[in-house]
């Protein structure tokens, strides 16, 4: 692992995000917001990959952490009116960080009881946890309960989404490639052997949950300030599953694969939507010849998932085995 390259990547990606955000006005808002969704998906999938992929735990409650981050950051920024550019971004940074920390705390709460559990049992605990968060939010009148919470500021931009996506990738990649981080992989590969070798498996599992939850919280903050309206229903079980699918499709413990899967799975439904909207095709007289895709879009999406999983069970993008994989 070459750290100089990792830092180059981090700075490069942040600079790219910043440059791109300067041209945001020129980008069609529809696509601009899909880029935000992509950035958010990358943060979610890569952070989940630390828990599910590298550490070998099975979390089904990642959207729950996202909800904690989304609500915490939104409650903070809603205290402020219109602010100058600098103040707005400063407050936003603080709010995102606070959202991340709140989610990390929640991660700690799940991490501790889950120490005794493995595999399916842990999956059920995390699933239950995600649902608990949703139900608590639904019954919290201060944040709008089931009616949802309007977020006053749309501060999410390309710089924040891609900058933070880069930070997430950097932190997760550096972490698992460091001497310390080998412990995560050891826990995944053989927990008993790892323990026998003197690795504190408990500490590693909690660390994975806390770090993963922290970034999920940040992604939640980005989500809240991009959609500007959040409901507890938007962070349900199905949302968690969507991120798990990204991790599995990209290849467990394969950061690049997971990034690509996050991009692909966010773009795919929109791409299909675009196909169905084509007014004319050369050689065909019918209007909207691909209109049928619109109605069957989600079926096509699901079918593609099945086909991909059948043909590439090791993950779509694991072309070359990276040194991280066993």
């Amino acid at each position: 692992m070459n750290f100089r390259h990792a830092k180059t990547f981090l700075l490069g990606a942040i600079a790219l995000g910043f440059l791109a955000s300067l041209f945001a006005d020129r980008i069609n808002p529809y696509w601009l917001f899909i880029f935000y969704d992509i950035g958010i998906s990358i943060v979610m999938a890569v952070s989940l990959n630390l828990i599910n992929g590298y550490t070998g735990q099975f979390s089904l409650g990642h959207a729950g952490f996202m909800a904690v981050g989304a609500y915490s950051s939104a409650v903070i920024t809603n205290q402020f009116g219109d602010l100058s550019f600098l103040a707005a971004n400063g407050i936003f940074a603080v709010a995102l960080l606070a959202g991340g920390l709140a989610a990390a705390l929640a991660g700690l709460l799940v991490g501790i009881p889950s120490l005794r559990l493995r595999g399916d049992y842990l999956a059920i605990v995390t699933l239950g946890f995600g649902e608990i968060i949703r139900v608590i939010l639904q019954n919290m009148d201060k944040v709008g309960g089931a009616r949802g919470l309007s977020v006053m500021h749309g501060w999410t931009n390309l710089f924040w989404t891609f900058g933070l996506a880069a930070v997430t990738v950097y932190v997760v990649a550096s972490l698992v490639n460091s001497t310390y981080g080998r412990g995560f992989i050891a826990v995944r590969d053989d927990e008993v052997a790892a323990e026998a070798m003197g690795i504190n498996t408990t500490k590693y599992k909690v660390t994975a949950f806390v770090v993963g939850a922290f970034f999920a919280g940040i992604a939640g903050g980005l989500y809240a300030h991009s959609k500007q309206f959040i409901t507890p229903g938007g962070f349900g079980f199905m949302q968690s599953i969507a991120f798990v699918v990204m991790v599995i499709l990209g290849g467990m413990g394969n950061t690049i694969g997971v990034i690509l899967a996050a991009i692909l799975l966010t773009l795919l439904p929109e791409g299909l939507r675009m196909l169905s909207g084509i007014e004319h095709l050369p050689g065909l007289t019918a209007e909207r010849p691909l209109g049928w895709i619109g109605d069957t879009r989600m079926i096509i999406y699901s079918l593609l998932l099945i086909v991909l999983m059948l043909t590439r069970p090791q993950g779509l993008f694991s072309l070359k085995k990276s040194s991280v994989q066993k």
Partner: protein
Amino acid sequence: MNILRPSIICTVAFTIAGLLTGCNKPSSVPGAGDDTIKVGEFASLTGSEATFGQSSHNGTQLAVDEINAAGGVLGKKIQLLTEDDQSQAGQSATVVRKLISSDGVVAILGEVASSRSLEAAPICQQNKIPMISPSSTNPRVTEVGDFIFRVCFIDPFQGTVMANFARKTLKLQNVAVLTDVKSDYSVGLAKFFKEGFTTTGGKIAAEQNYSGGDKDFNAQLTSIKAANPDGIFVPGYYTEVGLIALQAKQLGLTIPIFGGDGWESPSLVQIGGAALEGDYFSTHFSPQASTPAVQNFVKKYEAKFKDAPDAMAALGYDSALILADAIKKTGSTDGTKIRDALAAEKDFPGASGNITIDANRNASKPAVILEIKNGAFQYVQTVAP
């Protein structure tokens, strides 16, 4: 692991994405296509609330077909672009942005669920594109801004309607109110009912509360019985209402029970059964109403979809009709002008009654009162605001 790879891949992804955006700039002036006026609709065509979304979409489509068959507006046909939001949070914002910035629609129609309308409304407001929600009853929806309208009445209005109905038609004097304190909808309805009922000379004999999900209402009903009212107002949802009606009859309370549109579900009668006979509730629309506008709509809807229309279909139908009328009146597809025309709409004859847009961009319109008779919903009367 070679960390350089992601940066290369990211750059490639960025480039592709950049190309995509390049091809998707809206062509020319928004909505001013050569021979069509583009109108966007977002609806929950799939997912948990698909039945509502599809009804609403059918109604909207019917209205657009009708307008186009009659020659369209401003000499152009209306092209309805429908996008599915899968009943999912986050999707409405995406599809509405697509409709506005990629397709260049002149107005947006949707949604049934208030939470999804609230997601789309700020986007329409920012882009100065008028949005008409067919059936989002939460008052917050139109409070987003002056480009957001609705063609249904809001929750508080039903409270007033039922107060008038109880006083004038049922001639009740002492009424008990049983409120679901966990639901905003119920609390709002109860508040406006109490105000309306007491200002017309009635008396609230007892006030009791329950929480949505409760199964046993004997305590509340016993103390209501002790107050000896001549009617009970229950502004709740059908599951609890059915149980309340059952337990009230078991306690020997034979007085009428009445409530709002949260009652409207086939499950209501399945739960409450015969105990509900002779009870009343208010709602948006009844296919049994005898006005020509309603009968005309029901006939066309049944001919096209081989099914009886529900309230969502009628409201979807009205949202498209009132938009077309506003475009016709203002003679332009400019968002601000359409908004002004919409805000000035008065007594527009819709399938769900005559619609007047009030100062808060909500529809002021009659409600329909239904009675439960022989296990079915029977039209009683239409109550003007």
